[in-house]
Structure formats: structure tokens, C-alpha cells
């Protein structure tokens, strides 16, 4: 009996430590995704738009669809003509460069310009990177970072937001590069080839 307790105590300690160090954003994002999915399911069942405390808000044209690692939203199935001129606005941390490289790597048929006045569309967004801490290295043995980013594409002529996408990668092997390529991959879906 005493030996059993002795065996259980390190296991319990490890479990508590794991729960303490497991990245909170990852847990919260998972729960958020689940919540949104539940809301969508409820909406589908009732035939009413999913509400999150804003019942009187007018129905939005944005259609969202969960993807493998993020959330994708398009307005009225909007499409971008191929080789349209796109300006990527500066994003803190230089993430715009990773998006540009991702667009090229994923062979997205768009022309990226560095002058906003020459562009038809604008990509803007935010990104965040969380480096692996000592606890993650010790208990999970992973030195990969957690990456999250959210981008939107707006039509510069009309000012309308036509596309939105957010990505969250836990243990991103290639860091920002992976997140940038995920964004590019999903932009490609709305480009007419």
C-alpha cells in the first residue's frame, strides 16, 4: 500500500505540472473552436443565426468554415481574379514577409506589389509567436513554438472585407513560415485560376 502511494505521487505531480504548463492559448482556442462549432450546429438545427450574446445583431454575409488548423471565412463566396495586384500591409514581427513568401511557395496566382496605390486588394492582419519554455522542453521534449495569426483581405476600391482566415499552430515545426504558408494556402482557395 505504501509503495503504491510512493509510485502514484510522482505521476500525480507530473500530471499537475503538465496541466500547469500546457499552453493556455492552445486550450482556449480548442474550446473556442468547439464552441463555435456547437453554435453553428445549433444554428443549423434551429435555422437561426448562431448568437453569442448579440442576439439583435443583423445577419452577417460572412460564411465561416473550419479547416484543418484554422478558421476560414468568405463573404458571399467572393473570389479574387487571378493576377490581381495585392498589397500586404506591414504586420508586427515582419509576418507580411512570410505571407509573401508563402504566396510564392504555394504558387498563388496573385501579383504582390509594395505600393498600396497600385493594388486592388490589401492583406492585413496580426500575428503572435510564443517560444517554447523550459517546462515544454523538459516535459514534452519539444522546442517548437506556438504560432497564431489572423489575416483579412479587403477590396481597396469598395473597402469591403471579402476574406478572413485565422490560424493557430501548436508546436509549429517551421515557426512563422508554417503559419504564413497556411494563410497563403487558404488565400489560394478564393483566387480564380
Amino acid at each position, binding site marked *: 500500500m505504501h509503495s503504491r502511494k510512493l509510485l502514484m505521487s510522482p505521476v500525480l505531480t507530473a500530471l499537475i505540472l503538465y496541466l500547469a504548463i500546457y499552453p493556455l492559448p492552445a486550450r482556449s482556442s480548442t474550446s473556442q473552436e468547439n464552441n463555435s462549432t456547437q453554435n453553428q450546429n445549433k444554428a443549423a438545427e434551429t435555422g437561426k443565426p448562431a448568437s453569442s450574446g448579440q442576439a439583435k445583431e443583423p445577419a452577417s454575409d460572412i460564411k465561416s468554415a473550419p479547416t484543418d488548423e484554422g478558421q476560414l471565412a468568405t463573404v458571399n463566396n467572393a473570389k479574387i481574379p487571378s493576377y490581381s495586384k495585392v498589397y500586404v500591409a506591414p504586420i508586427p514581427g515582419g509576418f507580411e*514577409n*512570410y505571407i509573401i*513568401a508563402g504566396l*510564392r*511557395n504555394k504558387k498563388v496566382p496573385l501579383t*504582390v*506589389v509594395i505600393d498600396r496605390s497600385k493594388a486592388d486588394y490589401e492583406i492585413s492582419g496580426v500575428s503572435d509567436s510564443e517560444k517554447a519554455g*523550459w517546462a515544454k522542453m523538459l516535459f514534452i*521534449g519539444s522546442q517548437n513554438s506556438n504560432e497564431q495569426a489572423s489575416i483579412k483581405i479587403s477590396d481597396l476600391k469598395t473597402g469591403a472585407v471579402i476574406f478572413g482566415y485565422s490560424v493557430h499552430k501548436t508546436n509549429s515545426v517551421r515557426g512563422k513560415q508554417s503559419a504564413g504558408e497556411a494563410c497563403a494556402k487558404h488565400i489560394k482557395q478564393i483566387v480564380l485560376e
Partner: protein
Amino acid sequence: MSYKGKVLSVLLLLFVAAVSTALAGEKNAPPSQKIPKGAKVFVAPIAGGYDNYLKDAIAKKKVPVEIVANRDQADYEITGTAESQKASTAKKVILGNWHSREEASIALSNIKSSEVVWAYSVHEEASTHGKKSSAEACAKHLKEAIENQ
């Protein structure tokens, strides 16, 4: 309306349609992605002095471009971002890894047309030679892009 008038109006309509189609085609035409050998390239300052590593790497890898110090003299411009993270004590003790983590992303744009003609990003989780390695990776791929077009 007389017969000549009708013919003229139809011809005018056809001309307008042809011109508008041509303009639309021109607008969405794929950009010329070719980077000529010997092109004059200006490397814009990058945080952490990464532009210097990039210039050295371009010279070392014998990339067929000419680096200029003044943007006004250049045909193309390299802009980008770079981030370096030295190995933490935990990384050294737990993973036994002394190497730094390098991330960089660069884009080569045509100054006249403002179009980005080439872009590349690199991520090295344990870079043996730090920024030098990632800069040389960028230069190597730029050279391939110029030579394989």
C-alpha cells in the same frame, strides 16, 4: 438611321469591346517574373543587421547580381525580416543543443513596377552558424531562381 450609320455604330461598338477586353487582359496578365543576370540590387536595412549577412552571402554564393549602396541606382530591392534566438539554458541543459534558432523572410521587388518578383523564407531550429546559415540559404535560393528561369 442610314445603312452607313448602322455600320459605323456597329464598328464603334466592336472597337470599344476590343479595347476594353485588351485592357482587362493587361490588368490581370501574369507578371514577368524574370530577374536579369547582373541586375542592380539594393538591400534595405533589416533588423539586427541581417542585411549585412545577406550581402556577404550573396557575394559568397556568387549570386549573379550587382549590389548597390544607393536605392536610386538600383533596379530591384530586397526587403525582409529576420529573427534570431540564442539557445536558452534550458535548451542547452535539457536538449543538449547550443545552436540558435533562426528565422528570416525576404522579398525581391522591382522598384519601377513595385511588383514582388521573388520571395523566400527560411527557418532553422538549430542553426550551426547562426544568421550566416540562414542568409546563405536565402542567397542560394536567389541564385537558383535567377539561373533556373
